[in-house]
């Protein structure tokens, strides 16, 4: 195996646990440094995940440690300038979403990456979750037929407690163009585009703040997108429970659906038993799968497997590619299209 890449992490908040646990265990990486403005946070992360050094100043870290790869896990409004410095210091950048608040800033950052001959990679982790990979297989092997519709729906109780509802220290994400929804919209959009990689000519996006108040800019998004004969719906709700992350892909032969927070897989397609018996067989197979999922999800909870399982797979593929001098799995087109579509959803002309 090629030499392990020297990795560094900037920002040791909640998501750092997922990145650091990969870096701590992967033979493809060597965790050389962690950096955080809070000295004790960096010390804790370094001790817990066996990093070789800690820093409070990322520029000092870049100069002294010269990492091959930097994971940027800081609040979104800081990504651009930190990523620029990392790329110019000769490091590939893996950055949490959203990479930048606007498409224009993404293109600027991409140009810097090109100039520095480094890769810039946005975290599209849910693309690598098992149920999404399974649905992808249904698409590629023709089980679903030609994909016609995609619905991606996330329900998160962001208004009742937690970091987003904290009025004492308003989360910086509230200042992004889509407010708190900007924290997850990248996921909603790249999953839509994964199954419907088309240009949507007609977009109708309803942004609402049903809960009111000044802290939240929006707490609800209901968007319909049409490109040719293909339809997509992107939905975010803060007022429906239970929390879920539903993905439904409908093709010309059948459909598949999952919930990435409580994983299961349902696939309704014509079965070998024939037209008359297919509904029965679908109910039987999907019912069995649901029972298995209930046991499996209990086991997942005990075994601490979280919805971030895809991140481990994404990072492994990314590090493998970087080690071998190949392009990483998340491409410019993936990020560019995602960023453009987020912008289109926010565009005044597309609002209803």
């Amino acid at each position, binding site marked *: 195996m090629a030499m392990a890449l020297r990795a560094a992490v900037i920002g040791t*908040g*909640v998501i750092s*646990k997922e990145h650091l646990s990969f870096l701590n265990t992967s033979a493809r990486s060597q965790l050389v440094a962690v950096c955080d403005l*809070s*000295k*004790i*946070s960096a010390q*804790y992360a370094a001790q817990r995940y066996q990093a070789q050094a800690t820093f409070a100043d990322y520029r000092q870290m870049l100069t002294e440690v010269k990492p091959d790869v930097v994971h940027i896990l800081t609040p979104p409004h800081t990504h651009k300038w930190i990523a620029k410095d990392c790329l110019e210091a000769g490091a590939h950048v893996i950055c949490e979403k959203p990479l930048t608040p606007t498409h224009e800033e993404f293109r600027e950052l991409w140009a810097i990456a090109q100039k520095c001959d480094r890769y810039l990679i946005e975290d599209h982790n849910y693309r690598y979750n098992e149920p999404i990979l399974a649905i992808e297989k249904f698409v590629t092997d023709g089980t679903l037929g030609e994909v016609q519709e995609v619905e991606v729906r996330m329900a998160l109780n962001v208004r009742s407690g937690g*970091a987003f509802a904290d*009025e*004492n*220290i308003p989360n910086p994400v509230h200042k992004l163009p889509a407010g708190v929804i900007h924290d997850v919209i990248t996921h909603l959009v790249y999953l839509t585009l994964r199954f419907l990689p088309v240009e949507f000519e007609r977009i109708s996006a309803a942004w609402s703040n049903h809960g009111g108040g000044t802290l939240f800019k929006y707490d609800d998004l209901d968007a319909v997108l049409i490109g040719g004969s293909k339809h997509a719906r992107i939905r975010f709700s803060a007022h429906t429970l239970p929390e879920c992350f539903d993905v439904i892909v409908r093709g010309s032969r059948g459909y598949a659906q999952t919930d990435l927070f409580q994983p299961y897989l349902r696939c309704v397609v014509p079965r070998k038993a024939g037209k008359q018996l297919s509904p029965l067989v679908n109910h039987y197979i999907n019912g069995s799968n649901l029972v298995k999922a209930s046991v499996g999800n209990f086991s997942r909870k*005990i*075994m*601490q497997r979280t919805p971030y399982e895809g991140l481990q797979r994404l990072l492994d593929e990314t590090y493998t590619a970087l080690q071998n001098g190949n392009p990483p799995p998340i491409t410019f087109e993936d990020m560019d299209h995602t960023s453009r579509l987020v912008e289109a959803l926010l565009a005044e002309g597309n609002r209803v």
Partner: protein
Amino acid sequence: MKLLITGASGFLGQYVVVEALRRGHQVRAVVRPSGDVTRYTWHDHPSVEFARVDLRCQEGLTSAIEGVDAVIHLAAAKAGDFYTQFAGTVIATENLLRAMVEAKVLRLVAISTFSVYDYVKMENNTLVTEDAPIESNPLERDEYAQTKLIQEQLVREFENTHQALVTIIRPGMVYGRDYLWNACLGAELTDTLWLRIGARATMPITYVENCATAIVLASEKEAAIAQTLNVVDDNLPTQREFAKKLLKRMTVPAKLIPVNWALMNSLTWVLWYYNKIILKGQAKFPGIFVPAKLQARFKPLQYTNAHAKEILGWTPKYSLDDAFERSSSDADLLAVSPQASPVSA
């Protein structure tokens, strides 16, 4: 004295504020910016002022501290995931200590917890003193214990690096009005169905008013500087005795499912070995099925408050019966007269 009290709006914090006022101190109470201070009966006391800052960020902290004689640091996060508790307990303390250095205030009474001890290393019926071993494997413990351990480490560094005048108070389980149930009894399955784990273990508890007095005394007494003090009440009850008193005061008494301590302890060790050997340590079981967490709550041990009494000249004023009586009464326990005479150390 002028005392800055963090966590002033919390359960214990409010009683500490009131006790400080009763003893004639001036209080600068730290409350979060969005907090409604008018809900505290003592909010308009002439010796109270508020510092509206959030310890999780540094902004405004130094000026909030400037001019006080001592800091009583109670603020901590007791709920939420690890990172929420890390921010509310560890980063909050890191910011506070940095601001104290900047404000040149180096007298600190830091409130820690019994959770920092290593209960697995103690034999049954050991007397838990301030010299008992500190948890050596924090990852086996809950988020609260993990973050309070790091907090104590920060406070020790502050003491050593800046020659600060530090007292660490480790209260046992603090109980009082609205907080009569505590985790040393068992697990609340529902409001009226409890799992009681063990019956004969002594409970390391302190009634909130007794504890508040000890904390304020610690800020007053020079003898408390550089000391670590365990704070529990006298004549500690067993789990059975406490549960009996608690059930008597419930309008609809809960049903108890008693579970033998030795049986439960054995079961957790079986699960622990299964997890370590078969599941490669990847499993996370509920707290009562993890030996280190179970023992921290239910292990039969002995406790002493001798050192706190000697250093502070403190005697817990309220017995268990008094505490239950007061907690169940209609009396305003947080009432404080506008006039109080300053006490001398």
